[in-house]
């Protein structure tokens, strides 16, 4: 166990948490790769979205096109590309849903495991006092009033977000930018209207 090697550190548990989250992130990406990224339907969907969003962009920024929609055909064309882009994005998020469920299950199981391992134990020391909202997570299940004590939950949260996002980016698994609006947190696009 890694924690045995680093017992000279008071907060050696933090290394265990980080190590476990790195392994979990790799396992999750492997699952996603098996269920989604290697399939042909995903690849074609992704290239469709990429193409459509690039096309839309060039259409919108085309200097020859008049800004005010004097040309009806132009706006109609843009509308059509936009609708197909939205449809493909929706298909993509549906597609991701099944692997998302498996990944969520794995993350949940690992979280439960870590919770058993480090319950009520400060795994790290924060170099700052977090704001009230974050304290709920960083001081979760901990005794005492020292709010710089960091619970496993907060460290695990930091690890899983930073490691997973960067691993996905590195492997080229991040969602295509054109489909950003179809994610779990749809962002309002001021330019659609």
């Amino acid at each position, binding site marked *: 166990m890694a924690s045995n090697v680093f017992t000279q*550190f008071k*907060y050696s548990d933090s290394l265990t948490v980080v190590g476990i989250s790195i392994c979990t992130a790799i396992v999750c990406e492997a699952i996603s790769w098996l269920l989604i990224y290697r399939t042909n339907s995903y690849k074609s969907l992704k290239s469709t979205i990429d193409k459509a969003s690039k096309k839309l962009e060039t259409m919108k920024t085309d200097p020859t096109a008049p800004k005010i929609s004097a040309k009806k055909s132009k706006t109609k064309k843009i509308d059509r590309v936009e609708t197909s882009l939205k449809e493909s994005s929706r298909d993509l998020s549906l597609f991701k849903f099944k692997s998302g469920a498996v990944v969520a299950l794995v993350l949940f199981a690992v979280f439960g495991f870590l919770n058993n391992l480090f319950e009520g134990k400060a795994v*790290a020391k*924060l170099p*700052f006092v977090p*704001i009230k909202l974050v304290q709920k997570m960083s001081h979760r299940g901990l005794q005492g009033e020292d709010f710089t004590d960091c619970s496993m939950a907060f460290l695990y949260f*930091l690890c899983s*977000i930073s490691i997973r996002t960067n691993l996905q*980016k590195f492997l*080229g698994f991040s969602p295509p930018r054109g489909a950003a609006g179809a994610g779990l947190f749809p962002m309002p696009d001021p330019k659609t209207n």
Partner: protein
Amino acid sequence: MGVKEKKSKQANSNQQQHQNGHFSPFKFAKLVDPDASWDKDQLGDVLHWIRQIVALLCGLIWGAIPLIGGIWFVIFLVISSAIIYGYYAMLLKVDEEDFGGHGALLQEGLFASITLFLLAWTLVYSLGHF
């Protein structure tokens, strides 16, 4: 290990196929060339990785010194955003309107970099000073 390597290799080749190979003749010189043309994905990726590197470096330095207090988190945010802004607006001189405005460019990789910074800062501080 062999399987993993195979996987990542495959992923890389997939990526290159997706980007029609315009990432493969990628030259380091382009990173500092104000005349180079950028598309949204490339610039986004570069900004993302710059942010992550800045976050990791700041986190390690902050933790090693150690710098304590919420103000240093704010200072990190300012430094990181200033570097990003300086990079695309002053070094590359891209027109931010082509890429969705300042907000979109400054947001690129922001959340991941914040969590990476907090992780590095907390880890180095906890392990090095207790």
